[in-house]
């Protein structure tokens, strides 16, 4: 192993960013490095940042694909503000990522690509690695492309395949720098390319070449080590939000004893949930790729009527198409989980960037009075628990649930402590029993106000549901004005009573303070990081991060009333703050909104909070 020549420097935490052309395999490089990070025992969080086009023109700034990972020996909740190390495979990726690198940070470039042609494509007039413009950084110029060719010369590969492996050279270098064992990655190659031994060989050789190059050249002068994080006992894995969402549903279906049905249509960044569930026919999952989002949700409603845990997955534009059908699920009082992986909007907006701007649509985007439960996942691993909880609430309360995640949760990954399914909360759907003489389609449980789930094929329970207003209890079609008012109020009350089954809103920090920071959904990691940091620095600050949006936790008003100032932070133009104003108009709310398709940075939040505290 390496590390013989170099002195080892221990670090608390590090942010590494890989950037290259969208064809350069940076997402794979990043996720393999995450795997090795997991095996090194660090806690981490990742942030993939890639363009909307599959292959934007090579070498241009619009075609740059990035992957950032933040890891440490303490718990890590964000993918990090600025990078300590940037790997830039070409001039465009350097240009696009300069604003993400720390002063004095380390930049590794593929010097083979810093020629006139590529510099010009990236819009540089002179070479930034030689013209002095990077003087505030440490730059390592490495001829990655040519050394990659050298490393696989003996395998007689075609030039295209050869160049495809150059990302592994860069990975090898970074692996060495952080004292990682390449073994984990070798195993990945062997599994992934089992059918193609020469490709396994090529990738291994290139990775090893990068690793050894970093060693023998003593490029950094020392290697870094980030010691394992003090994670609690248990079995762990690395998981992305989308996969966690899919698995949460699988676990919920099993626990509820209901078959799992997904009706969906591909859309970035939600597609991976459909893909993941399509894999798991082995666990009985029926994943149906419909002809559009409407057919996706409506088929799910059909499956729900038939007794399945039915879900549909989409992103903002698809949620718009599903609106009318969500109303049908509200009216028929059937369980249904609608996952909206939010992205930048409106319309097609910024399809590969994350935003929190579908909240209003989730709350109000339907005709008539059509309340639904809304749960917002707060981290990639929480997507698992949120999906599980959404399924539980939907089935137990017989009403649709919108689960809001977002692009950064969906693609971001995190260390996941694997739970045992038996330890998850029980799920008891109110299934009507065969030949129940008391059964009436809209007879309600006095506590939850839910109706019973009578499943086709069950003797003695034949009944009709549909979008037309139904008479209370009997479920017959009814146009009676007073009945409509009664049913509207019942449907609303049913959703509001879900609050009785939710935990109270918790606060990170003191019960009373100068400033309460309020946030919701996918920003949890960064909010927690900045608030805890400021608490350590002695500021009077607390965080209330909301996971339950509709209904709000019962103690919400009380929590908001305990602090002198309130600031609501969102990756949108202020949707949650409007909702809070509507519900609790007695408080004054400050707000901080970022609408750039980019996550919050710890530094910018701290600056805002300090300003407010000093005002």
């Amino acid at each position: 192993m390496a590390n013989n020549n170099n002195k080892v420097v221990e670090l608390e935490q590090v942010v590494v960013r890989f950037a290259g052309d969208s064809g350069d395999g940076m997402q794979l490089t990043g996720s393999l490095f995450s795997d090795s990070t997991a095996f090194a025992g660090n806690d981490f969080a990742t942030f993939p940042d890639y363009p909307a086009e599959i292959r934007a023109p090579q070498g241009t700034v619009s075609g740059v694909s990035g992957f950032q990972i933040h890891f440490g020996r303490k718990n890590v909740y964000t993918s990090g503000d600025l990078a300590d190390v940037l790997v830039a495979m070409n001039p465009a990726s350097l240009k696009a990522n300069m604003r993400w690198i720390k002063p004095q940070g380390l930049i590794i470039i593929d010097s083979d690509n810093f020629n006139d042609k590529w510099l010009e494509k990236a819009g540089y007039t002179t070479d930034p690695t030689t013209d002095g413009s990077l003087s505030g950084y440490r730059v390592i110029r490495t001829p990655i492309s040519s050394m990659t060719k050298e490393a696989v010369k003996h395998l007689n590969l075609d030039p295209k395949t050869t160049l495809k492996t150059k990302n592994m050279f860069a990975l090898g270098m970074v692996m060495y720098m952080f004292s990682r064992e390449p073994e984990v990655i070798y195993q990945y190659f062997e599994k992934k390319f089992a059918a193609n031994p020469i490709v396994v060989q090529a990738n291994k050789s290139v990775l090893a070449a990068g690793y050894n190059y970093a060693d023998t050249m003593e490029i950094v002068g020392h290697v870094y080590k980030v010691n394992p994080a003090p994670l609690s006992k248990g079995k762990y894995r690395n998981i992305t939000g989308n996969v966690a969402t899919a698995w949460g549903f699988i676990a919920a279906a099993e626990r509820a004893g209901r078959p799992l049905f997904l009706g969906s249509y591909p859309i970035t960044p939600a597609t991976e949930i459909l893909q993941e569930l399509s894999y798991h026919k082995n666990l009985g999952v029926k994943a149906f790729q419909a002809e559009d989002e409407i057919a996706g949700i409506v088929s799910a409603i059909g499956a729900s009527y038939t007794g399945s845990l039915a879900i549909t997955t989409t992103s903002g534009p698809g949620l718009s198409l599903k609106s009318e059908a969500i109303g049908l699920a509200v009216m028929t009082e059937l369980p249904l989980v609608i996952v909206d992986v939010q992205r930048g909007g409106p319309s097609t907006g910024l399809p590969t960037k994350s935003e929190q701007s579908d909240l209003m649509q989730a709350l109000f985007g339907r005709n008539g009075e059509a309340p639904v439960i809304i749960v917002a996942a707060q981290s990639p691993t929480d997507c698992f628990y949120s999906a599980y909880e959404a399924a539980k609430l939907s089935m137990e309360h017989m009403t649709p649930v919108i689960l809001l995640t977002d692009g950064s949760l969906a693609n971001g990954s995190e260390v996941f402590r694997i739970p045992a399914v038996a330890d998850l909360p029980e799920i008891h759907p109110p299934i009507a029993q065969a030949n129940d003489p008391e059964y009436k389609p809209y007879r309600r449980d006095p506590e939850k106000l839910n109706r019973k789930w009578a499943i086709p094929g069950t003797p003695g329970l034949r009944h009709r549901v549909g979008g037309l207003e139904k008479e209370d209890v009997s479920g017959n079609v009814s146009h009676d004005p007073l009945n409509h008012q009664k049913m509207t109020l019942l449907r609303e009350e049913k959703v509001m009573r879900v609050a009785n089954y939710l935990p109270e809103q918790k606060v990170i920090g003191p019960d009373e303070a100068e400033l309460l920071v309020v946030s919701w959904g996918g920003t949890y990691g960064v909010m927690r990081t900045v608030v805890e940091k400021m608490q350590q620095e002695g500021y009077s600050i607390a965080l209330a991060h909301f996971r339950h949006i509709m209904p709000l936790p019962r103690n919400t008003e009380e929590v908001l009333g305990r602090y002198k100032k309130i600031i609501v932070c969102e990756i949108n133009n202020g949707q949650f703050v409007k909702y809070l104003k509507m519900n609790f108009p007695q408080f004054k709310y400050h707000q901080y909104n970022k609408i750039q398709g980019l996550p919050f940075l710890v530094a910018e939040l701290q600056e805002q909070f300090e300003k407010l505290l000093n005002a």
Partner: protein
Amino acid sequence: MENTQIDTPVMQLTKDDFASDQMVKWCPGCGDHAILHAVENVFPNLGIAKEDFVVVSGIGCSSRFPYYMNTYGIHGIHGRAAALATGVKLANPKLSVWMITGDGDCMAIGGNHFIHTIRRNIDINILLFNNKIYGLTKGQYSPTTPQGSKTKTSPQGTIERPFNPGELVIGSQGNFFARALDTNPKAMTSVFMEAAKHKGTSVVEILQNCVIFFNKAHDLITSKETRDDNQLWLEHGKPLIFGKDRNKGIVLKGTRLEVVTIGENGVTEADILVHDQYEKDPGIHMMIARMMPPEYPVALGVIRSVAAPTFDQSLVDLIEHEKQTSKFKTADDLLQSSPTWTID
């Protein structure tokens, strides 16, 4: 050869088992009433337990149908009945799923779902009530309204070319298509029976009269005076003969169908095209489905009935295979699957 057999009834059900206690609110004289009766006559005779029927619909006059049947039923949103039926059938393939839809519901707003359901060959029975008008919204033209018709939204006559549902179904790789008339309940019943027996998407177009907004839309085909020359009842294995004196027939001339008179120009019965509803190649079926007056009579009865693998069965098979070959048996197996690491 028929492609499936239905078991003899497991229990004796009657029409009354399926009559709902709800008031039927269609206009008096509407063709929908006859279709409801025909369905009530068919269901008890299929050998299917009464709790295993699910009637699904979209929106329109005809789509109120589920409320008028004493089965499991779901009345959906406009145009999406096919998607709803798909979900029901995929969730539980043992159910007998009947989809009720109108020409506007399934060919305008629901056109996309309609063609894709047919293409996938999901084993559901689609009863398409074709009154060539929008009934529930009171008389706007639909995708089947004949060109030139004056309706509420085409006061000068439509300038659109109408769909022929049979053409659309066969063009979407449909394997079962039949036509029936609301004025001929007996034939309608037998067509429904055949549709029920067919495994795969079966589409029955019922020429249904809306007495209020497009009365007599099908008069050329159904009126006493003209029906003999305009109705051609198909029977598998029998020649395509029609007319009051049963002396007219259809022959295949080159790549076209032609109407001939037996006994004229040396035409004998042996020259007449013989109907083969089980022919896999859709060519002739497409031509038969397209026949329309004034040049041709309208083909009624089962035009096409071809066995093919169904989506729902293929999905069941796939899941069975995956379950058997996978080492994952529970969600825990999935969660615990490598790569994982342990901290202790």
